[in-house]
């Protein structure tokens, strides 16, 4: 289980999450995809710490930031979904296309 194995796992999780983000219609399911993508980042960060520079704590700090971002992303996402659902009864991405270019 060298660095390559961990990065392979990270790429797989990131790609699955990306599929979910691109394909899901429900906003909450889209957020599940985002969580999976950040999950992949966490794996990569931990693996880089252990396999490249284990003497410093930089990699660990990076993982700590990614885990926090994951929790904050979920909280903000659900707040936005609740707000838009209250205002317009919308919980699908296709109905919330106001900013579509």
């Amino acid at each position: 289980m060298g660095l390559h194995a961990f990065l392979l796992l990270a790429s797989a999780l990131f790609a699955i999450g990306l599929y979910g983000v691109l394909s899901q219609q429900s906003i909450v399911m889209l957020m599940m995809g985002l969580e999976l993508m950040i999950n992949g980042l966490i794996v990569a960060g931990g693996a880089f710490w252990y396999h490249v520079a284990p003497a410093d704590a930089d990699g660990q700090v990076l993982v700590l930031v990614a885990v926090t971002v994951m929790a904050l992303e979920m909280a903000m996402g659900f707040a936005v979904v609740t707000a838009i659902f209250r205002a317009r009864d919308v919980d699908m991405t296709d109905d919330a296309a106001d900013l579509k270019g």
Partner: protein
Amino acid sequence: MTLQVIAFWALAVASVASGMAVFIVDSMARATFALLASLLSVGLAFLLIDLEYLGVLVILMMVMEMLIMAVFMIMYMMNPAGLMPMKMVHNDRAAMVIAAGVFVLLALGAFVTPWPRRRGRPPADVTGALGLSIMGPKMLVMMVIGVAILATMISTVVLATHRGRYDRYGDALEARRPVDPGGGRLAVRDDRDRHGEDRYGDHPGGAQQPHPDHGPGPSSPGHGHDPSHGHGH
């Protein structure tokens, strides 16, 4: 092949499989628990590379996070708990092609890139090193995380609040009578107490007049997701 390698590959397969299950199962609640399984496998894999604290942190945090998430998922669930097949996707084929392409690119990059050689060894006390780091040279990271968490708490409450003081008293906060279900009797009575005069008595019909925004009378508090009651109109 050591036991550790076997454990890693088992956890990796479990993580990827449950990650796929998130978008396959029919119920959003089940999808949440599939995501939890994926995150737990990652947390356990961290235990294999000396990241005891971060591994346990991921496990504990994600158990709580996914349990809260399950409540929201059930709130926004479309069909009765997976009794009907759920496939709500748009542009499925393109998304799959893009995701597969990104996976191939990332995996190729992981194997082709000449990663630097390992420098140093993990300290004896990995957790202690992290603690000293975020309380010392990486203090700024910790402070920014703290402020970000505070900002998130405030903005989530603001976003998710149904009606705040600006909805009740107007954008300049100067409405005499708050826009409340039931005509704002309680707040007016407070006002009278403060000024020592019976302003409430001047408007005997106040409580009976339904507010234009709030339907027929005082039965409105606590209503759920009726868009006609939302603010911002």
